[in-house]
């Protein structure tokens, strides 16, 4: 049973981690908490359902569709909700938070109107493939999710530290003004960041749909809040922190269900937020500097 639960925990944790990566990327560069990230993830899942279920597309095409749609959403998000606030005089640092809450409400309710309130099944033959060892059944999707999360983390780390775009990104994250003086096209970098983060959200959406065979408009909120908890746990803007934080949350939720009271499952993330913020606001892996920034 323990082994099975650990597998469950790692699967869930990997999904949390992928969602947290999107949060952490945007926060790292823009210093903004994108409250709409969970809903972008949800839209990605719905695109997957629509593509495979209604349009009958193959899975790989559904993946591309989800990435494209969420990327466009990311661009729109940056263009219409974040950019107008940037560098504007008298705009409080809370404005982007409130503005992205607006986007999240909009997307959730739009999905309600378009797709209806209920769960949509996400049936693909791919998600039926499983390996049975003894009494334990592992689905291929679970393995894929874990691998994708690791790949995304490694990919992002390399991209950030080795490539030119990544370096520009980090320069922008350090200081917007200095970066633009140094000749970094900060506008482009910011768009790139939000788009990449959103696309990662879209990938996560499809993976969740496949793994749990359920997609609903409300899933964005609950996953989004978990993602938020993880980046606080792992340190804002920290890629490795997001990964480790995701796994910690996934495993502790699963272990709580296995050995404790499943009713408090959702509370773990929030208790974690509170405890971490009070004891170590920079997160487990964060440095003190990021906390000074508002």
């Amino acid at each position, binding site marked *: *049973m323990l082994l*099975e*639960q650990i597998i*469950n*925990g790692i*699967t*869930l944790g990997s999904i949390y981690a992928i969602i947290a990566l999107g949060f952490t990327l945007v926060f790292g560069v823009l210093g903004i908490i994108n409250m709409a990230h969970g809903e972008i993830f949800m839209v990605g899942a719905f695109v997957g359902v629509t593509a495979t279920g209604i349009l009958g597309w193959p899975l790989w095409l559904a993946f591309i569709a989800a990435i494209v749609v969420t990327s466009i959403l990311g661009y729109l998000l940056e263009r219409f909700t974040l950019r107008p606030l940037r560098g504007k005089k008298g705009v409080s640092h809370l404005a982007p938070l409130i503005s992205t809450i607006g986007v999240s409400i909009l997307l959730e309710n739009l999905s*309600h109107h378009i797709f*209806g*309130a*209920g*769960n*949509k*099944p996400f*049936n693909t033959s791919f998600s039926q493939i*499983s390996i049975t060892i003894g009494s334990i*059944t592992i*689905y291929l999707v679970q393995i894929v999710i874990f691998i994708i999360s690791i790949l995304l983390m490694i990919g992002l780390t390399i991209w950030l530290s080795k490539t030119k775009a990544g370096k520009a990104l980090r320069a922008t994250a350090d200081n917007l003004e200095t970066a633009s003086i140094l000749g970094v096209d900060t506008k482009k970098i910011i768009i790139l960041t939000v788009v990449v983060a959103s696309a990662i959200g879209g990938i996560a959406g499809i993976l*969740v749909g496949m*793994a*749990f*065979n*359920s*997609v*609903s*408009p*409300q*899933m964005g*909120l*609950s996953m989004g809040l978990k993602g938020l908890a993880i980046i606080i746990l792992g340190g804002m803007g920290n890629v490795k922190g997001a990964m480790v934080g995701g796994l910690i949350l996934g495993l502790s*939720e*699963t272990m709580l*269900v*296995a050995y404790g*009271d*499943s*009713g408090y*499952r*959702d509370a773990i993330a929030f208790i974690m937020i509170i405890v971490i913020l009070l004891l170590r606001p920079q997160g487990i892996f964060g440095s003190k500097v990021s906390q000074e920034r508002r």
Partner: protein
Amino acid sequence: MRGLNKKLFSILSIIMLLLLAACGGGNTTTDSNSNKSEDGVISAKFGVIAYLTGAGAAYGEAITNGLKLAQKDINALGEVNIELVIEDSAGKADQALNAAQKIMSDDSITAIIGPTLSTEFFAVAPEVDLNGIPIMGTSTTVDGIPEIGDYVFRNAVPESLAIPAAIKKAVERTGAKKVAMIYGNDDALTKGGFDVMERTAKEMGLEITTIETYQEGQSDYNAQLTKIKNTNPDLILASALYNEGAVIMDQARKMGINIPFVGGNGFNSPQAIAIAGDAANGLIVATPYFGDSTDPKITKFNEDYEAEFGKKPDQFAAQAYDALFIYADALKRAGSADKEAFKEALAATKDLEGILGKFSFDEVGDVIMDVTVLEIKDGKFIEFE
């Protein structure tokens, strides 16, 4: 700064005065105790509070459709003439209460149907009861609804009727001794259903291996199911709405849990099959309404409904349809639209033939009727043998 202070209060008082002034309008009520017209037709106005906008709008829509169809059929019979005043509650207790107040401010309203959710009903019914207006729930299945007051009734089959029936039949056939339970603990309907399940299981002397919960919006039930699987139950009692319930069954089957599930009212929907596919096989529910029944009353209702609204009816539509017939019957017996007489007649309802069967009310105003136990087999609901 003092100026601002004063301005603030003056603005506020203007706002409030406007509001009070607004109260003046639109409340010219005529004395309408008895509306027996020349030709002996009794007419009455009923208020309807339904969940018409928001996440659960589908429920409210089914209910109002069922009522409208019943209204048409009843008025066509020519014995009574019913007018419906429909208000939206948006699934929220405070808005449901607003809607109730709006309806009650019209003195010519004889009785109320709704609201849709139990959480709304708990807020509305005490108020309506105190005003001496009869109210009936058609979809509120949680324990303790008719007990709110003398004027409170329901024709929805409560979980306390449906669930024990389903569990008993399931245990009879499978010979189950050990049951595991899972329910949504942040929803009043599923929580209410769970309370009944737990009570029933204890009364029947079943061993409860574990009790698991989930929350709204959750999509991963693997942890709970793994735990359930390891306790080796013979039967799973799942108090879930079909949305979550179907996903739970799907994940359970994938994990290799192949025992039957017993669900409550909220689990009973063809949607469960649409979502979970083959994984839904083995679900056992008790319901007053069996859509695929060959009973001519039901097939006629299904046809009429589909002709009128372009989709298949569900349990909520059928219960609402019968509810208005119960009201019409009480109205006939009361002989007038007087609230007091209507309430007395309503409470005396006995063995009224509706499309779902024979209706009677017990002493507190709860429904007495038979339920059918169904199971999903080969992707279809069939009667459980």
